[in-house]
Each structure stands twice: as structure tokens, then as C-alpha cells.
């Protein structure tokens, strides 16, 4: 099987984000693989371990995104492709198109994984645009996957404890999320081997993509201010409860 996994190199969610200008932030913080993408990489590797084939990991990003590709290679992906950009944020339709062209140029996908969203821009749409470009069906927030002959049967969480079961024809695009699997911790020999695996570097221009054709532009980033110290309610539990109810009424919650 030929499986492609789309990953993104993003700031660690634990990192503090310092806004340094209108739409810029301090990029010296620690960057990691987008957590949701890890589930995609893990699932792809499990499938290929069972059925044979290779996992190719693709990303659109700055050259530092090579580190995220290496993480995926250490988990067991065979090769990586990096489509180089100048900025961390790129319009989703351009990203989707770039991914599709890079993949198409490389091989014929049987399955494509992405994460359900990135933790930095949180657009939640790149995989739809990618699927549209490939004319493939797509499902997101996938927590379970079973492959049958020409179909993928997935379960997706839609909230309230309800899961939808969807059957899609393959090849298809799957947006992975937490619960799909437990991503492996790479073994040292695999980490060492990953340093030697191939990473293809491509320019956006090589894919014939017009960077000015994007629809979305970030005008401004603004830090969200932290809350201050809490106002403490005191007294017996009954007294506190009464105070709480008053607060709720004042805030028109009840």
C-alpha cells in the first residue's frame, strides 16, 4: 500500500506565544509535529506493517519542518517530502493544492492521512481541500478505522457521546484525532536510521502554485490576557452555595 501522511511543523502547545508585530510571533519557541498528525502517522505505519507498502510523509512549511519529518521517519515512515514556504502561515487552499501536487508527482496514494486540525492556525480544512483536489472522499475526527477491500470504514465523533460510522471508497483522505491509536515512542535504532532516510525538498514554484492566489490573510495577532486572582467565596457549604446561586443569577446564567 502507498500511504501518504500530511504533517505540520507547529509550536509546541506548551510554549508561550509572544506576539512580535502585527501578524508575527517569536518563532524561537520549540516546534514539534502537530499532535493530531501523530495519530495519522501511527495509523499509516500500522497498516503498512500489516499489509506491506510504504508510508511517505509530506509537509508544507519552512525548512525547519525537516525536524518534524524526521520524527515521522523515526516512527517508521520510509521517506519525506518538504514543500518549502517562507512563512509559518499559509492559506489552506494553497496548502491543500501544494500537498496534492507534491503527492501526485510522487506516486499513487491508496490512502492519505492528516490530522483533524493544526494547533496553530486551527483551520480544520486543509484535508478537505486536499481531498477536493484529488476528487477523493474525506472524513475527519476519525477515531477508528477498518480497511476493507475497496473501502475504508471509519468512526467519527460528532459529540454528545455519539459516533457516526461512515463507509468511504478508497483512496480517501482521513483526518485523524485522539483515540484512533496510541502513537509509538520511537526506538533508538529507528531514530538513528531516520537520520539517513530521504527527504525530498521542493519549491512551491516547482509545483506551479501562485502564492498570491490565497484567500486568507492574517491582519493581526493579539495575545489573550490572563485572568487575575480569584475572588474567594467563604463560609459553610450552604452559605457558599447560596452565594454561587446569586452570582449565577447576576450573570444571567440561570
Amino acid at each position, binding site marked *: 500500500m502507498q500511504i501518504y501522511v500530511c504533517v505540520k511543523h507547529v509550536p*509546541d502547545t*506548551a*510554549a*508561550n506565544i509572544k506576539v512580535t508585530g502585527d501578524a508575527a510571533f517569536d518563532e524561537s*519557541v*520549540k516546534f*514539534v509535529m502537530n499532535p493530531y498528525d501523530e495519530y495519522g502517522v501511527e495509523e499509516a505505519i500500522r497498516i503498512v506493517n500489516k499489509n506491506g507498502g510504504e508510508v511517505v510523509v509530506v509537509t508544507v512549511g519552512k525548512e525547519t519542518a525537516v525536524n518534524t519529518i524526521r520524527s515521522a521517519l523515526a516512527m517508521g515512515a520510509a521517506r519525506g517530502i518538504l514543500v518549502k514556504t517562507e512563512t509559518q502561515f499559509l492559506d489552506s487552499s494553497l496548502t491543500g493544492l501544494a500537498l496534492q501536487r507534491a503527492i501526485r508527482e510522487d506516486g499513487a496514494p491508496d490512502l492519505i492521512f492528516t490530522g483533524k486540525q493544526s494547533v496553530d492556525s486551527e483551520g480544520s480544512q486543509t484535508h478537505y481541500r486536499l481531498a477536493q483536489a484529488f476528487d477523493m472522499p474525506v472524513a475527519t475526527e476519525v477515531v477508528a478505522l477498518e480497511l476493507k477491500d475497496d473501502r475504508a470504514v471509519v468512526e467519527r465523533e460528532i459529540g454528545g457521546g455519539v459516533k457516526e460510522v461512515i463507509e468511504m471508497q478508497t483512496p480517501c483522505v482521513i483526518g485523524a484525532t485522539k483515540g484512533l491509536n*496510541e502513537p*509509538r*515512542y*520511537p*526506538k*533508538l*535504532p529507528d*531514530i*538513528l536510521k531516520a537520520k539517513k532516510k530521504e527527504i525530498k525538498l521542493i519549491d512551491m514554484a516547482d509545483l506551479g502554485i501562485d502564492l498570491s492566489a490565497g484567500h486568507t490573510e492574517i491582519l493581526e495577532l493579539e495575545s489573550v490576557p490572563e485572568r487575575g486572582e480569584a475572588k474567594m467565596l467563604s463560609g459553610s457549604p450552604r452559605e457558599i452555595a447560596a452565594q454561587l446561586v446569586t452570582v449565577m443569577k447576576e450573570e444571567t446564567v440561570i
Partner: protein
Amino acid sequence: MHIYILLKSILVTALLIAGFGIFTIRVRRLFRIMKSVKGQADSKVDRPAERIKVLLTDVLGQSNVRRKRMPGLAHTLIFFGFLAVQPHSVELMINGVCPAFHVANIVPGFYGVYLFVADILAFPVLVGLGYAIYRRVIVQPAYLTDGLDARLIILFTSVIIITFYFINAFLTIPSIGGGFDYARYFTISNLVKNIFNLGSLSPAGSRAGYEIAYWLHLLTILGFLVYIPGSKHLHLLAAVPNVFLKPLDRPKAMIKTDIEDEDAETFGLGNVADLNWKNVLDLYACTECGRCEEQCPADMTGKPLSPKRLVHDLKLDLFDQSAKLLKGEFASVEPLLRDGSPLSDDVLWSCTTCRACEEICPVNIQHLDIVLEARKHQVLMESNFPPEMQETFNNLENQSNPWGFSSDTRGDWCKGLDVPLITDHPDADILYYVGCAGSFDDRGIRISRAIVNVLKKADVDFAVLGPEERCNGDMARRAGNEYLAQMMIQEKVEILNQYKPQKILTGCPHCFNTFKNEYSEFGAGYDVVHHSEFLLELTKQKRLKHKESKFEKLTFHDSCYLGRWNGLIEAPRELLRLSGLSRNLIELNRTKTKGLCCGAGGGRMFMEENIGKRINIERAEEIVAAKVPTIAAACPYCTIMLRDGIADLNGTNVVYDIAEIIDMVTV
């Protein structure tokens, strides 16, 4: 009669050749197994004079064994008595082959004195063995192995001593002893003769009696000789070299694995072939005395880990697969952790690396060398470790602290305290390395702030790294993630070498231990001091002004990485005494080198404890029962674990770090 003597000579010769021959073959095989393993040992015979002194005090003086009073005494009696009897047995063997040989003919005076001494020393052996039987049959402590092996050894030894006395008793009869006046030198053997009325036997009867005793004696000795290499009595051979080769210094570093080695097929201890010869010698030297098990915090709280059983099971595994090792068939050696093996994940991961086992072992077995190397293999080669550690490893890698707080905020703990950063003050006398717990944990932060208060009171010129500080990799290393740890150490080494601090002050024994004992191997060997010893120095230099303390009874809980790992036992106590608290200071039962671990070491702070009783509860129970209102600790993890344990028991005892106490009793 002459025919008998001739036959005896031939038979004894044959048996001696066979007995010693088999013994030699078996011992040689043990040697070959020791040489067949692939691991590299860095054991050197350095400081030979010191080592010889160790042999004299530990082996001859039995000082290590006698740390457990009664069994130690029993062992000493058996040791000396048995040694005393050996020359006599050798004479008997030679005499069996060559009937004309008698030492009495050569050096009668010396011989007489020897007989007198041996005869007296042999009796306490029986007393000692009697005590051993009493312990196994009546007392039956859980940590003491009472199997066939133990009982056979007791049996063999008893028979050898008893037949010794009977032989001697018969030798006092002139027709058997010849011209030498044996009776003159014997005390107990004479008693035996009288009690059993051996003098009233006919000449043929006494000759028969003597020969029976002789054969029993010879066969038992030869049988024992052949039995030793396969039993735990192997310690007779292995203990002396193991003690000779023991690490002479208490502090030790973890083994630095070469993770860049592209040709390495494996890392750490994955199967018995990965052992090194020193590990194997450790396994051979084990007497299964169980003292390590008795001290082990994991075993005493119901975990499947017992250091004694670990050594025993590993030794059995080694012997079971020795054929493959000797043939060089390393590929077919089965892994340590496999189906059906008593060595399980829980055995490995229950260890808190407290070193109580190594501390108490009478033959200086280095149990941790095995546990920590086995962990390395599981993490690096198998990715097999407690799943909750994956998040911790990722946090350490990404934000340089186990909880995953933003590394940007590492300097926030000292907000409002006016603490100089080393970038602003690079020539500071002291670089105060705060550590992860001290920077991010609420309880740890209070300790760091107390340390700063005291440093300022004493007008110490110090600075901190602030947001530049990084975790030193200790927890990752103890949890087997050598790759991550070395990456973190390299990063930290670069930062330290950039500032070249004159002295590093640490608030945590884990940080202290790794900087002091492990960082020089990575190129950053700086002068390191723990805050308890530094505050003691300040106190001795009279740089702190004391006031009345409001403390009542107070005890000091020894941190494993301070006490057992680095010998810092008296310094914190002296600090408390010199700070006006000598009247209040008491000791818990399990204290100093026998102090009970809090349960957080070995990375266990970040692992779930689901088996048996929680170790911190075990320690908290002792504290609550001792009714001591204040406990002084010198480690943020100990403070947190003890506080939580006491809280779970609804205790009212309060845990303070020693720096907080000093802060409270100074102006």
C-alpha cells in the same frame, strides 16, 4: 590390612583426582561463561593498597557481614572454624594417598598448636550452623531463602565438622594416631571420645570407626567441592574477588552508553549475553542472604521486585543459556523479559534506585548496574516502558521539564524576589541551579524561595540561569532513556561551559548527584555543592544570625541521593544542630544509610504506583507513629512525597525542607 591400605591409597587418589578434577572443570566453565559475555566492564584494579586493606577488614575481619549482628556473628564463627579445619583435612587427604605422610613427623610443635586451635574453633561452627537452622525453621524471615540448596550446605558443613571431631577422637588412640600425642592438644575431640566411649572399642572396632569417619569426611568434602560451583556456596570463590574489585568510592555514575555507535546491535542489557564479566561475578558472589530484599522499599511494599530474586533469577537465566554463550550463538540467546520468565516489566520498573541493596550487600553486588542497564534496553530498543512516561519524555524533550510547562516561564518562580540572572552577573561566586521541581512545582518553588532568602541573609554572591536553565536529564537517565538524557546533558553542558561557574549550588539531591558525578564525563566537571552542606558552611562561617526556634521534636529524613549515593549524612544534621535545634533532633528507626526511600527516585515520581502499598505511605506511617511534629528533608521530591503520604493518613506532621527551617530560625 595392607591390602586395605593399598586399596585405600588407590581409591583416595582416584577420588581426589576425580573430585578436584570435576571441581576444576566446573570452575573453569564458570570462568569461561564470565569471559563469554559481550558487555564491557570498566572495573579496574586501581588503588591496590586500599583494596588489600578492604580484603583484610571485610573478608578477614568479616566487618561487612557483621553489620547484621547475630547472623553476622554466626557467619564469623562458621568462617573461621571452617578455615581452621581445612589444613587438617588436606593432611588427611595426603595421608590417604601416602600413608607415611604425617605433619607430626615434620613440625610436631607447630602441628600441636594448630590442632589445639582448630579443635576449639571447630565447635562454634556447629553453634553457628545451629543458629542458621533456627532461623530457617523457627524464625523464617521472608527474605531468607530456605531451599534445598541452603539445607544441603548446612548438612555438608555439619558432617565435615562432626566427622572431624570423630576422626580426631580416634586419632587419640595410639593404634590409630601413631606416636603423636594427639590427646594432649585436643579439648573437644577428647570430650567426644569420652562421651561416646570410643576408648572402650576393640582395636579392630576403633580402626573401623576411624576409617568410617575418614571416608565420610573425605567423601563429604569432595562431594561439597563438586557441589559448590553449582550452588549459592559459590560465594566462597566469588566473594573475595568481588569484594576486592568493589567500587572504592560511594558515589558512582551511570554507565555512559555510546549511543552514536552505528555498529552497535543493541544498547543496554537485553539478554544475558549483554552482561559484562563484573556483572557475572556479582551474580556468582550472591549468597542469597536476603539482606537486600529486607531493605528494598519495593519489596517491602508488595512489588514483585526483590534484589535478591533478581540476582538469583538472572543467574539461573545465565546458566540456562550458558551453552549458547559458550558456543558464541549470541543471536539465539533469549531476551531477559520473556514469557514465562520471572523477570517482568514490573520487576524492572518498581525500582526507585535508592541503593539500599548495594549498601547492605555483604559481598558488594552492584544491583543497580543490572536494573538501570536493563531499563536502557527496554526504552531504547523495545520502546517498552510505563506508558505514562511517554508524555514525560516528550515534555522533557520539548520544554525541558517533566510536566511540560513552557520553558520560557522557568524563571518565574522568583518573581518579586530580586534574584540576579547570570547573564547580568556572570562573575557570581555561586550559580544556584534551581532544578525542575524548584522552578515549576508549587511546593518546590517555596523551597527555592527559602533558599534564596537564606542566601541573601548570608550575603552570598549568587545568580541563577533563569529561563536559560534546562533540566539536567537525571530523571530521563534513571528511567532508561539514555538517548534523551544525553541530548539534554549535551545541551546543559554547553550552557554551563558558556558561563563556567565557580561553584554550582543545587537545591535537589538528584541535580547534585548528576552534576557532581556524571557531568565531567560529558565535559562539564564543575565544583558542585548541595544546599544542605552549603548552608552548613555558611553557618560555620557565622554568616547567619540565629533566633529562637519554635520547633519541638524534629527529625531528618535522609534522601537516597544525598545519603546512600553521596555520603552526605552528617552534614544536614550538623546544620540543624548548629542552628539551635540539637535538643530537638531525634532519629527515626530507619535512618541514615538504612533510611527508607520516599518512593520518587528512579523516575518513579512520574510513574503510576499501582501495586501493593505506596512507598511514601510506608514511610509516612513510620513518621506518624513516631509522633514527630516536624520532618526536615533536603529534596523537593522527598518533601512532596512525604507531605502527600502524611496527608493521606490524615497526619498532622509537617514536612519542611531544611532551607525553609534555616530560613525560619535566622534573621
